[in-house]
């Protein structure tokens, strides 16, 4: 592994994005626009926006970063550039960390803009620290990115990669506790939710939003989330093959 190559890869990925202004606009604006939409949807239910607004500031970046990173990585695999990189003197992790840095940067910008709109423009009020919600939102973006990079290994076409969104992300959204508190779910579903990464990322956000602090469980949530991000990056690197059939 080499910081020179990791940085070069991150720069290259960001350059690719820079040459695609429409994607940048979509990445930065869509999550914030969705939060605005939610605000108006719940206009007549006082308190509802404050309750779910905090978690959503994190969940929207999770979803978009998952999609964008899985498609980008798939493109690298299908255009032959990955095979070329694999014949060059670089470590597999250089590629994954390069992507991680680049999309981490974009995800951070996205989470910051979404938070600025939610807290600044829409007067979202959370029980805990605003800064903590923003940091967790960035963590959610990174989680989405690392999972997206990993699952792209299992898609051969962009059609398949797009389908991973409902197949892989929606169940996590349904079971993470956003729609129904997990302790009110059927036992089997609650058990499954423990195995899903988004459960922990959401739980941490929810605790800061409603309880006001992370507490012991929230801290565990954060540790698990960071662990999954690193694990997904490592697994993603492991799926890159120098030799293929």
């Amino acid at each position: 592994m080499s910081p020179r190559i990791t940085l070069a890869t991150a720069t290259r990925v960001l350059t690719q994005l820079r040459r695609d202004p429409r994607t940048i606009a979509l990445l930065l604006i869509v999550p914030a626009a969705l939060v605005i939409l939610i605000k108006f949807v719940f206009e007549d239910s006082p308190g509802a926006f404050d309750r779910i607004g905090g978690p959503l500031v994190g969940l929207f970046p999770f979803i978009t970063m998952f999609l964008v990173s899985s498609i980008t990585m798939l493109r690298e695999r299908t255009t032959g550039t990955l095979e070329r990189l694999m014949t060059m003197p670089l470590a597999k992790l250089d590629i994954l960390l390069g992507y991680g840095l680049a999309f981490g940067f974009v995800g951070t910008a996205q989470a910051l803009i979404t938070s600025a709109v939610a807290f600044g423009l829409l007067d979202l009020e959370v029980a805990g620290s605003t800064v903590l919600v923003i940091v967790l939102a960035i963590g959610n973006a990174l989680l989405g990115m690392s999972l997206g990079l990993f699952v792209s290994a299992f898609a051969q076409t962009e059609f398949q990669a797009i389908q991973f969104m409902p197949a892989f992300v929606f169940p996590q959204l349904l079971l993470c506790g956003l729609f129904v508190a997990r302790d009110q779910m059927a036992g089997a579903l609650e058990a499954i939710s423990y195995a899903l990464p988004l459960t922990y990322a959401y739980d941490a956000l929810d605790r800061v939003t409603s309880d006001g602090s992370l507490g012991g469980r929230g801290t565990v949530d954060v540790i698990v989330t960071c662990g999954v991000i690193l694990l997904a990056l490592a697994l993603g690197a492991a799926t890159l093959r120098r030799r293929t059939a």
Partner: protein
Amino acid sequence: MAAESLTVIRGDQEVLHGLSFTVPRGRITGLLGPSGCGKTTLMRCVVGVQITESGGVQVLGVPAGSAELRPRVGYVTQAPSVYGDITVGENLRYFARILGVEASRVSEVMKTVALEEHDRVANKLSGGQRSRISLATALLAEPDLLVLDEPTVGLDPVLRVELWNTFTALAQAGTTLLVSSHVMDEAERCDSLLLMRDGDLLASETPDGLRARTGEEDLEDAFLALIKEREAV
């Protein structure tokens, strides 16, 4: 470089049937044969990106695909492997940083392949120009072995001659080249030839050796004579 009973199975088909051959250093070796005869698979074995069933390839004294070969072997795939959404210069600078070569090499290799569109986005260029970006990338690290898969397909005749002049110059400077082609007139420019058909090696000869063996002046006719000779057995 030497291959020893190289066998490759892709899917449920054996595509290379135990090939053995050598490629001399500092020479241009042409790999010729019709489309689908296994040229690309053989080149992938040489670069070490192909899973092989049995046998193996030694490159510059070590097994193909060894980590120490990565900076010493340049591989150009048939479809240009470049990032289409960034400029020519950005492509080359990225690969130069990976290879750890000076940024000044970027303009040198662009000159070598007669590319001038430094600031143009790769996707806006023609297929021939994109394949020259791909070739330029392989030249960045001044590799000892260059493996080129049909590098001249779709290029205009003037440029094709220029590229072959470049290959000759590289070989004279000590680079070993393995160049595939399905047009026989390029065989003339090679020092030695590997003729393939249906995953088998028909001959490993110099162009003159091939003429002497078959009694044909034209290399295309010589290739046909070899196929007949093989079928007669």
